[in-house]
């Protein structure tokens, strides 16, 4: 990736971060922390890698994406809207009773959403199903998913991992959004899933460790997964919960709390300053 391309992704991700803040602010509810931590992965997937058609969201040869940590719908909706699946103006209708933008991703109501999620641990199993269908139908589409590091406490995640390795699903790439926090605090204090790298390896996955906010590393991991044969790939992406908004960074309290007007304005100002900085770079 050249410098211009990286700069373009940075800009794109910042637009998405601004939408996340405004979605959660206008709903006065939702999950900013985990949405901001997976934004750069989503941006790289949808703006650099994935084969999708915004005019034909259900195109059968498209690459699929499952947000297994469904509470981060604000990030997915903002990405899909920026990509052109639906108007960005709708984003502030997030979680309203008369809107189609359900609190957790809905494949029934929201164009571009490939799977309804929200109950943790189930999305990765549905991604396994999509990857299996790709193998059965001899299709070359790829399946992507993002998991939370608290989410992998669900036993079902490991059942899915076992099945993906058993069926040699090398068309499946999952990202672990490794931000170290869940609702009740530090994942290591609540219920430690460590050592995660060894666990995924022992379950038969190709494991790659990266920085979740470095576009080159994200992109390289995706390419490496594509050339790995006979195994699914787990990209363990070390991230910062709340990334990009100073007062939300690494704070468990911003998991599921909406900013007030003042906090919203400060967050937007910080993100705008970042965009301005990119211009003079």
């Amino acid at each position: 990736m050249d410098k211009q391309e990286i700069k373009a992704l940075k800009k794109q991700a910042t637009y998405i971060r601004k939408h996340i803040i405004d979605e959660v602010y206008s709903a006065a509810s939702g999950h900013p922390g985990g949405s901001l931590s997976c934004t750069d992965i989503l941006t790289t997937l949808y703006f650099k890698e994935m084969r999708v058609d915004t005019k034909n969201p259900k195109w059968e040869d498209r690459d699929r994406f499952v947000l297994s940590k469904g509470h981060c719908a604000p990030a997915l909706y903002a990405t899909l809207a920026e990509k052109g699946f639906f108007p960005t103006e709708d984003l502030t209708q997030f979680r309203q009773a008369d809107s189609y933008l359900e609190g957790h991703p809905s494949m029934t109501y929201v164009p571009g959403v490939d799977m309804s999620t929200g109950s943790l641990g189930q999305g990765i199993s549905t991604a396994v199903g999509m990857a299996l269908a790709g193998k059965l139908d001899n299709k070359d589409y790829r399946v992507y998913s993002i998991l939370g590091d608290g989410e992998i406490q669900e036993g079902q995640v490991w059942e899915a991992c076992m099945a993906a390795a058993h069926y040699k699903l090398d068309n499946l790439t999952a990202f672990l959004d490794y931000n170290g926090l869940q609702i009740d605090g530090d994942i290591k204090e609540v219920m430690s899933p460590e050592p995660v790298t060894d666990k995924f390896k022992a379950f038969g996955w190709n494991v790659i460790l990266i920085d979740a906010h470095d576009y080159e590393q994200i992109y390289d991991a995706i390419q490496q997964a594509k050339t790995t044969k006979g195994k699914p790939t787990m990209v363990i992406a070390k991230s910062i919960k709340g990334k990009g908004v100073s007062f939300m960074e690494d704070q468990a309290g911003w998991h599921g709390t909406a900013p007030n007007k003042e906090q919203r304005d400060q967050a937007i100002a910080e993100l705008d300053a970042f965009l301005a900085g990119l211009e003079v770079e």
Partner: protein
Amino acid sequence: MSQKIATREAYGSALAEFGVDSRIVVLDADLSKSTKTDSFKKKYPERFLNMGIAEGNMMAVAAGLASCGKVVFASSFAIFAAERACEQIRNSICYPNLNVKIGASHAGVTLGEDGASHQAIEDMAIMRAIPNMTVISPADAVETRHAVKAAIEHNGPVYLRLGRLAVPTLYDESTYSFELGKGVTLAEGNDVSVIATGYMVHKALEARQMLESEGIKARIIDIHTIKPIDKEIIIKAAKETGAIVTAEEHNVFGGLGSAVSEVIVENCPVPVKILGIKDKFGKSGKPDKLVEMYGLTAADIAARVKEVLKMKK
């Protein structure tokens, strides 16, 4: 109707209050701030165990603890407690009849913004269908406190259905008495009976006032124990008022309406209208807006009363 308190709030306070009993162990699945088990955690940290986001495991661990003499409260949102971990509850808790109390918060559409994926509207039906399970759906903070106490005293599995939203406190702590399996007549009347549970009880009282201005006197019954249900109070209501409306924040299938109808058809057939969520998923939105959209207002109850009165012989 004074102060507004959520039943999950009262649940947390009750656990902290009755937690002196050293047999009590509280489990949660990464939602202790929402289910309010953190009130217990603050007081008795050594008997609070966070099981992480792993509800199925939590329920079976609770069974193991109970088999060793503990009184276990296992909490999560109703959707993940009753539904994610359903089979563990059935086979590891109810079949061996173990002393596990399931504190299931955020039930129904009044959970609000999190939306359909998180709104349990089937939990009472599912829990009610399992042998050995006692199902309680309290209407306010006072009733919740007493329900927790009764759950501790009862030997066997109990499902406690709790809400996220603050609701009016209907009962007076100094005069209220709770008996497991016994309904409460909140207001007398002989034209029709409205039998309600949980969130819908205060709506039923509001509906009564609306109907009174039109000369209809409705008896209001609070059924806090969905199972075993109070047959006596239901049969009496059927015989004395001749028509019944049930009201619950739950699917119209399998919950309070079904439980009441089962008693009615076998004992004293009279017309019954079941008010609840009409077999469709919830959605995101402000709780008050959803209560309107899903037909759970006092006016909806009053309308259903007029329908059932037309059927009354």
